[in-house]
């Protein structure tokens, strides 16, 4: 499927007269306020005073250093996967398989972390990262190969491979790699040498640094290298790209491998920083939500990172609101989705 016409935000391009931009800001504001009002009505219906609830949402997310750290930690997996997804999305390749690539990466990296007899974190952790990236990258590469050489649409193949990856993981932690001392279905616990601890002086784990680093790296890759340029050209018009000498088959495999390896990396980061074991519950649809993150960020790594932080903040703030006002989680999730919708609407209205 070809990418959308003119989806890519050319950095630095600012269109329209001052009047138009002012109008754009105003419309965005109106859309956001409309969203807040609708959300407020929903909150009131659930028994929480809207203004106070919103206040609590923001306070929960930013009002304390604790909240900020939590928000960042929530953002980490979404950011890493989302940044990675920018690459194939820009090329017009729809990698819907980030969830499966996350699982494969967590599995490969996790097994290395648990079974490799190395004690120094400085050696062990990078090795686990490499293993995770190799696993996730290979899983995605397979789908890319099928698309490039057999014409198998990547949406179907990656979707199916999500399920297959999960079943493989569930089997492996149930029997061969099960923790023998613990009856629960999970791997052995990740040894301390492989854990991503909190950055000294803070309460946020090292994964955030990985996320920031990758954001910069991929942004550079896309904006400043020939590869990145080719990716963009492919996305705009695959036939023209072919004609201009871009080997689209190789590009397809490469972009899939890149995004798969990042998804896999996100998997091992989650395992080493938060989950500390490999089991079936390591992901809350991260691969899936990251698609929204990448698109909210308009396929730019910096945008994806910000969008991930936004969603992370809402999640943490939402926990606060829920505990204070005892409103059902379902209503919070509804409001979150509503906000995303309104952000989309605002952005489209501004463009017109």
């Amino acid at each position, binding site marked *: 499927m070809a990418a959308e016409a003119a989806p890519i*935000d050319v*950095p630095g391009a600012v269109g329209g007269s001052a009047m138009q931009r002012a109008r*754009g*800001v105003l419309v*965005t*504001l109106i859309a*956001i*306020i409309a969203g*807040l009002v609708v959300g407020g009505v929903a909150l009131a219906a659930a028994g929480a005073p809207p*203004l*106070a609830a*919103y*206040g*609590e949402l*923001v*306070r929960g997310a930013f009002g304390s250093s*604790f909240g900020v750290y*939590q928000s960042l*930690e*929530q953002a980490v*997996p979404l950011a890493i996967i989302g940044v990675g997804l920018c690459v194939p999305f820009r090329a017009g390749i729809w990698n819907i398989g980030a969830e499966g690539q996350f699982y494969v990466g967590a599995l490969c990296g996790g097994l290395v972390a648990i079974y490799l007899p190395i004690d120094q974190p400085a050696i062990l952790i990078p090795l686990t990262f490499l293993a995770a990236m190799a696993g996730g990258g290979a899983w995605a590469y397979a789908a890319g190969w099928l698309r490039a050489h057999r014409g198998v649409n990547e949406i179907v193949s990656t979707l199916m491979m999500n399920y297959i990856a999960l079943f493989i993981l*569930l089997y492996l932690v149930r029997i061969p790699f099960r923790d023998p*001392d*613990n*009856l*629960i*279905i*999970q791997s052995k616990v990740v040894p301390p040498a492989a854990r991503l601890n909190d950055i000294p002086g803070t309460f946020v784990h090292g994964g955030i640094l990985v996320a920031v680093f990758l954001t910069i790296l991929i942004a550079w890759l896309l904006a400043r290298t020939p590869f990145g340029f080719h990716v963009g050209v492919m996305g705009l018009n695959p036939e023209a790209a072919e004609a201009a000498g871009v080997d689209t088959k190789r590009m397809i495999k490469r972009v899939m491998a890149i995004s798969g390896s990042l998804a896999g990396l996100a998997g091992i980061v*989650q395992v080493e920083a*938060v*989950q*500390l*074991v490999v089991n*079936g*519950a*390591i*992901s*809350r649809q991260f691969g899936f939500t990251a698609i929204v993150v990448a698109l*909210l*960020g308009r396929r*730019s790594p*910096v*945008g994806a990172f*910000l*969008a991930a932080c*936004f969603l992370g903040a809402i999640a*943490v703030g939402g*926990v*606060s609101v*829920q*505990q*204070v006002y*005892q409103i*059902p*989680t*379902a209503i919070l*999730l509804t409001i979150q989705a509503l906000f995303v919708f309104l*952000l989309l609407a605002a*952005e489209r209205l*501004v463009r017109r």
Partner: protein
Amino acid sequence: MKRARSIALLFALSLVIVACSEKAPANDGTSDGEGKLVKVALILPNAKDDFTWNQQAYEGAIAAEEAGSFQLDWVDNVGQDASSFIPVAERYAQEGYDLIIAHTFDYGEPVKQLAEKYPDVNWTWAGSGLPEDLMENVAAYEQPFYEGSFLAGILMAGASPNGKIGAIGGFDIPACHSMVEGFYAGARLLNPDIKFEATYLGTWFDPAKEKEAALAMYDAGVDIIGVCGVPTGIIEAAKEANKGMVGYVNEQESAAPENVLTSVAWNTQLTWETMAKDVADGTFRPGKAYHVGLAVGGIQVALNPEYKDQPNAEAMTLYDEVLAKVKAGEFEIPYIPEGSAEDVQVSI
């Protein structure tokens, strides 16, 4: 970038809102004083109206709260993964709750991490099989469903015209595995030639699939199906095929009086109260795990008099005998978290 601008606007707007709104009332509950009630927080991974696992925990907790046993705060639909659990649990820990109940096996690792961080808070989780060096403020509450399923298995064997029974589990976790094998072990005690099949679905929440799995079993000649998971689809199948099933965690007889032989009911109120009382008395976690089981009424298995094929007299006698001996401490129902009941010798 326009979207970044939109996000920035949103942030700015939210700051304005914070400035304008009043601070929420502090949720500190009862202060210490006469009749100091233990502050309990219940964290449920899925919906509180899921008809079994989460619902029973919720209902038991509410009942205990209404009975004045403790002060309760709860949250549902938190999610099964650690990164969803941690912000929720940590907030409760910071607000000085006395006992935090983490109601699924997947919460075990994050509970251990948080327990180290918050040693003054007591943590308990739905675990099984605990490491030796578990810290003082962490306990697990076992889900001794296998005790109930053993008893139910006796009834199943006694009520099965074909001599073939089965079980359907969501995932092959110890609680389910031991429960599934428990049905088999109990049935074998009554009838050593009983035939038994087990299916695992790979999901907790797909009633259509559950129904098809149950129908597949009934087609294969199974008379009664024991369940470890959400049973709504299986109840439908039992009604349609006019065969039998055993309810899970909740009493499900009312849903299909003629097709539900019995239910392995879990008295969560008793379980929560037992732990909360220990917290109040300062004797939390006498051993690492709380085993509130058949002997003390934590698990209840009552035959449904309206079920269409009542078990034979031999089954009823054996059932009474086993139950009495368990309560008297003379018989211990085997716990089979791995492998098959065929490899376990049971004699009463």
